[in-house]
């Protein structure tokens, strides 16, 4: 009965979404206030009914209702309760319902957060989000209904995929989806602005906090996925250029470009067309990503349960939504006027370079991701594009970007004397270069050109993000940084730490596979490792073989690690649970391979220097975004905003973006 109510709630949500799409847009077109004011209640009601559907599905999981096909496929009565919550999005149908819920949540937040904006504008934003909701809800209901019954009901479920029974996996999909779906918000703002014909600095100021908010979640979601791959899936790798990783990474790159382009539009009233195009592109790439994952056209670890009709449906949705927005843009773009110019050495130039490089990187990754599809469609054979391609096409635009980033942060708007910029940054540049040459040689005893470039770029970005906050700290007369400025410096500090971590860990990672017996001792990267024994342990829904390893450095015990090989009782596949000794400057990673006969086991040990900097960098980046999104000027209402711009302008000129 309850699942039918959930199903029914989903149907009602579609009608409410239709209502939310048509009335406000029509009202805005014909100036009918009485229609426009219905946008908010409609969005709220749509949210409530999607939430009811979601709760109904969650309840079916908690109560082990195996008369639902989706529950029977993704859960089991022995599954721990925490994972039953996560199993709701463990498969295709449920994760789409989560998509719908996230979209409804963003819509609700935008509806109630946009009360200070003109009614005709906010109604259009909500209306455009309504169109997207209709599309995704229809898709869920018509091709992927999670409430389909299974008759007769299964005695027990086939269990959640053991790979997904992991704490990071509980947080990764919702976080990623919040970010992914959040890109719909800047898209809706851009389309609404095109419809209104009013694309000004206020528009950019309204759009920015939402965009940064979505970007923060996308950053966190991608980082969590990467971390999960690191210790659960990938035997110590953290990025594979898997098509589905690319699918989430491309909207992130576009979102990053969009945030920076919005900064220019907000402060200077230029780059308007470009900003609108980026907003459309970022959301289109989110939809394309959904298409790639759900259609099964790509070979990927993520491409579970796929079906061609689903792919076709999303492709149509993508064409309608993105194509519609682009046609609108073509008609309206000529109205967008730049409000000022800028010189060669100015913050605008650096942000333009940032945008170009990010777009180039996205474009190249897109080509690498789609190339196998075209190749196969032309009948030229089945192939996949290897990691070296992606590494090259990503690093070639990103290294100049890192260099320009350090310069751009210290450049003012409109124009700057190149000499002043040079005087300000020359010591940092020199320090970064020396550190990049000396540090790998001293710590690791070897180096390469690529290492020097990578480490140098990372240290350069790190130092140039730190210098401004630190110098203001020691100068008591200096004006305090705004929250947005703190956000900018922190986010860029995160980028710097990330680059250092990624460069060092890629260059000096040590990986050894070895056949060992109980009692064996061997050395990896200066650590002595001892295989002390094996035992068997029972988990709630699995049996595990647990290895006991001691890790010693100079004879002193550093850690005892107990990696596991689990056999889940329902899906009888083995699962490797690696264990790590995590340190700030290095991780040591041990994973059990398989028994080789007469007591021997294959064991993988990895030494990962500086890999923590990678995760810390992501956290710092996301935290910086959080600060920037909650800056005071976004919390001001329309009435308070009349204070003259120039007053804030003088201090904010230096570094807010």
């Amino acid at each position, binding site marked *: 009965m309850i699942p039918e109510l959930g199903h029914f709630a989903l149907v009602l949500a579609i009608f409410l979404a239709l209502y939310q799409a048509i009335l406000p847009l029509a009202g805005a077109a014909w100036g009918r206030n009485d229609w426009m004011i219905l946008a908010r209640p409609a969005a709220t009601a749509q949210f409530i009914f999607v939430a009811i559907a979601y709760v109904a599905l969650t309840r079916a999981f908690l109560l082990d209702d195996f008369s639902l096909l989706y529950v029977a496929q993704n859960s089991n009565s022995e599954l721990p309760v925490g994972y039953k919550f996560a199993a709701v999005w463990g498969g295709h149908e449920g994760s789409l319902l989560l998509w719908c819920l996230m979209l409804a949540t963003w819509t609700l937040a935008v509806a109630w957060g946009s009360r200070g904006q003109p009614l005709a504008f906010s109604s259009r934003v909500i209306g455009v989000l309504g169109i997207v909701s209709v599309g995704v809800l229809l898709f869920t209901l018509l091709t992927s209904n999670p409430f389909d019954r299974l008759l007769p009901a299964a005695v027990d479920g*086939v269990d959640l*995929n053991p*790979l997904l029974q992991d704490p990071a996996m509980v947080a990764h999909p919702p976080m990623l989806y919040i970010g992914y779906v959040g890109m719909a918000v800047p898209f809706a703002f851009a389309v609404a602005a095109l419809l209104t014909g009013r694309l000004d600095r206020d528009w950019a100021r309204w759009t920015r906090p939402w965009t940064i908010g979505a970007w923060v979640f996308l950053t966190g979601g991608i980082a969590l996925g990467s971390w999960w791959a690191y210790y659960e899936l990938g*035997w110590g790798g953290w990025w594979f250029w898997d098509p589905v990783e690319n699918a989430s990474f491309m909207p992130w790159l576009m979102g990053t470009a969009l945030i920076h382009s919005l900064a220019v539009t907000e402060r200077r009233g230029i780059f308007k067309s470009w900003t609108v195009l980026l907003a459309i592109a970022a959301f289109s790439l989110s939809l394309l990503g959904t298409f790639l994952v759900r259609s*099964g056209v790509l*070979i990927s*670890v993520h491409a*579970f*349960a796929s079906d061609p009709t689903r792919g076709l449906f999303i492709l149509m949705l993508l064409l309608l939504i993105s194509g519609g927005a682009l046609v609108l843009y073509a008609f309206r773009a000529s109205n967008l006027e730049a409000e000022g110019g800028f010189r060669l050495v100015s913050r605008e130039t650096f942000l333009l370079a940032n945008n170009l490089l990010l777009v180039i990187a996205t474009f*190249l990754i897109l*080509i*690498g991701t789609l*190339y196998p599809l075209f*190749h196969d469609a032309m009948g030229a*054979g*089945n*192939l*996949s*594009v*290897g*990691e*070296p*391609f992606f590494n*090259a*096409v990503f690093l070639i635009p990103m290294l100049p970007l890192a260099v320009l980033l350090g310069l751009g942060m210290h450049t003012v708007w409109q124009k700057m004397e190149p000499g002043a910029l040079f005087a300000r940054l020359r010591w940092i540049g020199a320090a970064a270069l020396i550190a990049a040459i000396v540090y790998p040689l001293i710590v690791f005893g070897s180096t390469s050109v690529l290492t020097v470039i990578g480490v140098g770029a990372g240290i350069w970005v790190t130092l140039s993000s730190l210098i401004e906050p630190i110098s203001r700290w020691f100068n008591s007369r200096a004006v305090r940084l705004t929250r947005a400025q703190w956000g900018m410096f922190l986010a860029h500090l995160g980028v710097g730490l990330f680059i250092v971590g990624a460069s060092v860990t890629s260059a000096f990672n040590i990986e050894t*596979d*070895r*056949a060992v017996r109980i009692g064996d001792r061997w050395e990896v990267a200066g650590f002595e490792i001892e295989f002390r024994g094996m035992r068997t342990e029972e988990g709630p829904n699995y049996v595990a073989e647990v290895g006991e390893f001691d890790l010693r450095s100079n004879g002193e015990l550093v850690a005892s690690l107990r990696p596991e090989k689990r056999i889940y009782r329902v*899906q*009888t*596949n*083995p*699962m*490797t649970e690696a264990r790590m000794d995590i340190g700030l400057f290095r991780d040591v990673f041990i*994973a059990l*391979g*398989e028994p*080789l*006969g007469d007591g*021997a086991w*294959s*064991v*993988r040990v990895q030494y990962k220097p500086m890999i923590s900097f990678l995760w810390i960098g992501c956290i710092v980046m996301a935290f910086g975004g959080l600060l920037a999104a909650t800056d005071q000027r976004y919390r001001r209402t329309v009435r308070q905003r009349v204070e003259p711009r120039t007053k804030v302008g003088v201090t904010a000129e230096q570094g807010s973006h």
Partner: protein
Amino acid sequence: MQARKQRMVFIGIVGAGLLVSLGFLYKALNENALYYQSPTQVVEGEMPLDRRVRIGGLVVEESIERIPGSMTIRFLVTDLANTIPVEYTGVLPDLFSEGHGVVTQGHIQEDGSFVADSVLAKHDETYMSPEVAESLAIGEAAR
């Protein structure tokens, strides 16, 4: 006239630059392309030996053989029409087992065997990788 000429030169330079970069891009794509082959295609000798390729199919039952005291393993991969021997040294993925699908990457040897530098097993027990399915279809056609 002058301005128009300048614009033509500018467009020419940008266009030429774009063409050159597209050429490089195409070259980079092809150099990094891993072609997928079924055992039948390997036996028919479609691919040059110096290229790294992906091959996939089913691991033949009772074909897994370990070299004692080492990490090296040998097994047979089949598309049910043709079978090729594969050798691999290293830790195997969790889902690797006899009778199930497997995709390996490496080089075809002159004697027709395959030396893999990485082994991937399919994602879960209910799902067959499209690559393995394609191999079986090719094998079906060859029989």
